[in-house]
């Protein structure tokens, strides 16, 4: 770990006093960076002049691995691209392979995908919101959020056997149908979970100290957000009402009704950390709505289309966008006609969020850096792949 590129400037002012900026290393091991991230912070006392991110600690060359393991074999690897919201990564890879190969997923398969994905979205947002509050100092809402997340993990374990890296979807659909009685269990969970959001609101959202820590911190304007390619809740918090599920719909989202919450500067400026937190909380409610509709509308039928074992899509390339927990995830795959992808590229929401941290943290205090990272919901595996 070196300081190449992070040199310290010594500032000699006219009065003859030598002041030095303190170079701090918020190192790869740190209780509050979400994953293995490193920031070199140049601080003047408590005020930061620059927070330069140093990424790459979690680089596993997943994109290169795709060229070796083939289309089907790559599905478990996609879980690890963002292990907090793994269903979306599965869905993205499935969709891009299906686009290349011209495969159509049966209706029931699509509904199973959406059910799994929306459950995963709730658990991903719960994790994001819970850890944000934990980083700011309140320890109890974190436990409440994770308690609910445990219940979702149990539901998803019943569905596909795994609690974190699901590998549930396949090219052409999903691996297994919903187990018997699943609808009842999920709906019972949603019944019990929805009042918890009000509890969360009263414990966190209206907490004066929490609002004081988050309001007006690192406000990102809509133009800046679009320029830096921020996506997902980060973009919506800045006021841009864009959601891939509604504006470039895929899967069965055209048949589902839901709203797209947008940041309105409820307690501070539009696009500040509080708005990013608040948008995620509202998106949980929308996911609950979607889940209820899915269980009402799900048809019978097969859950997976017939895809040959040696899947050889024709040569060409495809770019597919999936609305993941962290925003729109772009999957770009190039096929050369063989059963191994020629190139697979994932463009994730946290990548751009990491890039913007340096820009928006100038002049903030050290404690705010933690708030900013947590509110942008950066997970390290997405940045490094």
């Amino acid at each position, binding site marked *: 770990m070196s300081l190449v590129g992070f040199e310290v400037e010594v500032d000699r002012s006219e009065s003859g006093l030598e002041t030095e900026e303190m170079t701090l290393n918020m190192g790869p091991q740190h209780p509050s960076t979400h994953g293995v991230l490193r920031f070199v912070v140049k601080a003047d006392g408590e005020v930061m002049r620059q927070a330069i991110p140093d990424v*790459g600690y979690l*680089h596993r060359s997943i994109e290169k691995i795709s060229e070796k393991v083939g289309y089907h074999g790559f599905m478990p690897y996609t879980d690890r691209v963002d292990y907090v919201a793994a269903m979306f990564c599965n869905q993205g890879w499935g969709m891009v392979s299906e686009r290349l190969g011209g495969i159509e997923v049966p209706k029931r398969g699509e509904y199973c995908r959406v059910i799994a994905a929306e459950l995963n979205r709730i658990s991903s947002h719960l994790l994001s919101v819970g850890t944000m509050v934990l980083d700011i100092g309140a320890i109890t809402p974190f436990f409440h959020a994770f308690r609910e997340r445990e219940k979702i993990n149990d539901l998803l374990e019943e569905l596909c056997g795994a609690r974190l890296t699901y590998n549930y979807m396949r090219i052409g659909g999903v691996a297994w149908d919903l187990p018997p009685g699943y609808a009842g269990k999920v709906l019972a969970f949603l019944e019990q979970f929805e009042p918890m959001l009000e509890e969360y609101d009263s414990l966190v959202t209206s907490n004066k100290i929490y609002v004081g820590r988050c309001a007006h911190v690192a406000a990102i304007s809509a133009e800046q957000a679009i*320029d830096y390619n921020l996506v997902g809740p980060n973009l919506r918090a800045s006021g841009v009402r864009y959601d891939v599920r509604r504006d470039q719909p895929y899967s069965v989202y055209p048949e589902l009704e839901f709203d797209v919450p947008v940041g309105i500067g409820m307690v501070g400026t539009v696009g500040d950390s509080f708005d990013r937190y608040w948008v995620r909380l509202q998106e949980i409610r929308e996911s609950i709505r979607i889940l209820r509709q899915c269980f009402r509308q799900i048809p019978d039928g097969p859950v997976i289309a017939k895809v040959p074992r040696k899947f050889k899509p024709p040569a*060409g390339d*495809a770019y597919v966008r999936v609305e993941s927990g962290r925003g729109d995830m772009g999957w770009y795959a190039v096929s050369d006609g063989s059963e191994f992808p020629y190139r697979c590229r994932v463009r994730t929401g946290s990548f751009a969020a990491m890039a913007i941290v340096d820009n928006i943290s100038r002049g903030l205090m050290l404690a705010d850096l933690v708030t900013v990272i947590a509110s942008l919901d950066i997970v390290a595996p997405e940045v490094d792949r």
Partner: protein
Amino acid sequence: MDAVSIHGRLQGRFGESVSSVDNDAMSPFAVVEAGAIRDICRWLRDDEDLRFDCLSNESGVDYKDEGYIEVVYHLFSYAQRHALVLKVRTPRDAAVVPSVEMVWRAANWMEREIYDLLGVHFTDHSDLRRLLMPEDWVGHPLRKDFVEPEEYHGINTSRESLLR
């Protein structure tokens, strides 16, 4: 606007820089000259009807057999809600492409990653250094002819085969 009309406008304005347009592929794209990419992108961003204000993705693809590296730009417009795919080809052994960082700030890190993993040099980039690999890494891992070094800082990188 759909891809065909956008391609038409692009050819109308920058005809000599557009090498080819493929409207029948799975996702229609236009191949443009590397030298003109920055002006094209700036025009695409500022034009009233097109307004491509977002660089959704920038990837590099190494076509070893054809001898070039292709940089693919996926553009998107939040204002007009349409998308465009541009491709730039640059020879493998001297991969130089003008940077579009001054058009969209999102290109900053994406171009750093392409430089790091594929070895494409972007001119006029503000801070072109390795992003994911360590600073002292030699080679560009995502290239098709990349051979993993035997050791890194004294650590052996090869492993005994598990297949006995």
